């Protein structure tokens, strides 16, 4: 059975200058461990869709099903990572990593052991006593990811999570993050405006139309089982996928 089902989501909201239709009957589903990239013209409602899945925003109609059950509000099984790392400057890296657990009142021996293991396996253990300002952009982003993973989410939502990083850092961090997510077998939805990034990480790419956004296409990406975001950029199929998505997005504008 599907782990996550996004079913017929429609969203419209009221603003000072009128009613805005953001999403128009969006549906898709995902299996465990799958990575889905979402691309679309800017301002098409990609981030709105993520906020709805995260439970931060109620949909006007439609539902989000997790393990076949409808989700209302913020669900502990869903983790959400924003564009900025939002590490709190007054907390050490260790305390930052425990932040999510603290908010959920889940700090105990088992969860701290998990947090420690994550920091150790992803190269931040020696920096646990440091403060965010003492870390590089890539390390900060990794710490933010560990903060989310420490709460053991089954589904991770990434909202342009790497766009604040410079290009080189971004390539290494996406590679790191991809490995971490695959190893932890976490189902991931990533919203991005960067087409190469969407192809290099996604098992599938969901292409949205302009606002009100509809599903234009759900594209299967196949680079074989041994892929990583860096190696598949050199694959001849990469540019074919790129051209395809580019054309789809352009024909829309």
């Amino acid at each position, binding site marked *: 059975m599907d782990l996550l089902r996004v079913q017929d989501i429609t969203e419209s909201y009221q603003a000072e200058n009128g009613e805005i239709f953001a999403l128009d009957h969006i549906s898709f589903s995902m299996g465990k461990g799958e990575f889905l990239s979402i691309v679309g013209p800017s301002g098409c409602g990609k981030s709105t869709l993520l906020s709805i899945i*995260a439970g*931060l925003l109620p949909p006007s109609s439609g539902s989000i099903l997790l393990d076949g059950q409808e989700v209302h*509000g*913020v669900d*502990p099984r869903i*983790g*959400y*990572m*924003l*564009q*900025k790392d*939002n590490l*709190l400057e*007054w*907390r*050490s890296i260790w*305390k930052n990593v425990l*932040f*999510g657990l*603290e*908010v*959920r009142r889940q700090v105990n021996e088992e969860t701290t052991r998990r947090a420690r293991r994550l920091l150790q396996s992803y190269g931040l253990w020696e920096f646990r006593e440091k403060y965010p300002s003492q870390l590089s952009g890539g390390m900060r982003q990794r710490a933010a990811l560990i903060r989310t993973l420490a*709460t053991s989410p089954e589904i991770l939502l990434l909202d342009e999570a790497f766009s604040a990083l410079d290009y080189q850092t971004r390539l290494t961090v996406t590679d790191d993050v991809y490995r971490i997510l695959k190893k932890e077998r976490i189902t991931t939805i990533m919203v991005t405006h960067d087409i190469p990034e969407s192809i290099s990480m996604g098992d599938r790419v969901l292409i949205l139309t302009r606002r009100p956004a509809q599903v234009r296409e759900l594209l299967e990406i196949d680079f074989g089982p041994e892929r990583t975001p860096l190696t598949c950029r050199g694959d001849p199929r990469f540019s074919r996928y790129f051209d395809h998505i580019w054309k789809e997005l352009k024909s829309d504008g």
Partner: protein
Amino acid sequence: MDRRKSEAPAGLSKERAEYLRRKKARRRWVLCCQWGLLLLLVALWEVLARLGIIDSFILSQPSRIWRTWATMFVEGELWLHLWVTVYETLVGFLLGVLLGVGLAILLWWSDFVAKVSEPYLVVLNSLPKIALGPVIIIIVGAGTEAIIFMALAISLIVTVLEMLGGFRRTDRDAIRMAATFGATKSQIFRKIVLPSNIGTLFGSLKINIGLSLVGVIAGEFLVSKAGLGYLIVYGGQVFKLDLVMASVIILSAVAALMYEGVVLLQRLVMKHRATTE
């Protein structure tokens, strides 16, 4: 951390050592000049008064101020007046901070209450609170309470506005981040908004300690039987300018010390936070 920087480790380059030495020398020189200037002014005042160039009956003179202090000290009067003023200021200050921060939290919590009270805050903020003196005296009585109330009236609204502004400027993304973990409003306040505003809080404490003192002195001018403000008014009325000057100088020392107390507290809190978080 500063000390570590200024201390010269063994392998320091010659230029660096020279730079540090020069910086230290300059700091000393500035301090020397500051004290020198004070001494010079006091000496000049004394000499001019003795030569009769300035009228020491109106402007007093350092030696007479000194004698006034000595008498007050011997008679034990000094400590009484000092204590009364410091006590009133501290009580007014603490009440102002507690109530001010409390009200700011309430206004941050409820957008509706904040919107409704906005015009009232604007008017109260621009009103010269000293004008409320007679009203305060009639309501709470002509005593210490009225003076503390005056200190409170002067510092309260500033605290509310200052803290509320700080709360509202809290990084929205940080709040959103907490929300993605399902944080409640109270958790968002305790874990994000309040810690982001420690700087704002101390900024407002530094302003408040001065404002409370203004309120206390103004209150003591209106109603009092003791305190530095009382001494100043009394000295003025009976033309004892030595007493006025002596009290004003003590008052400036008190103001500076209380301000430094807040600075010290800030340093302690920051240090504590760095070691526990």
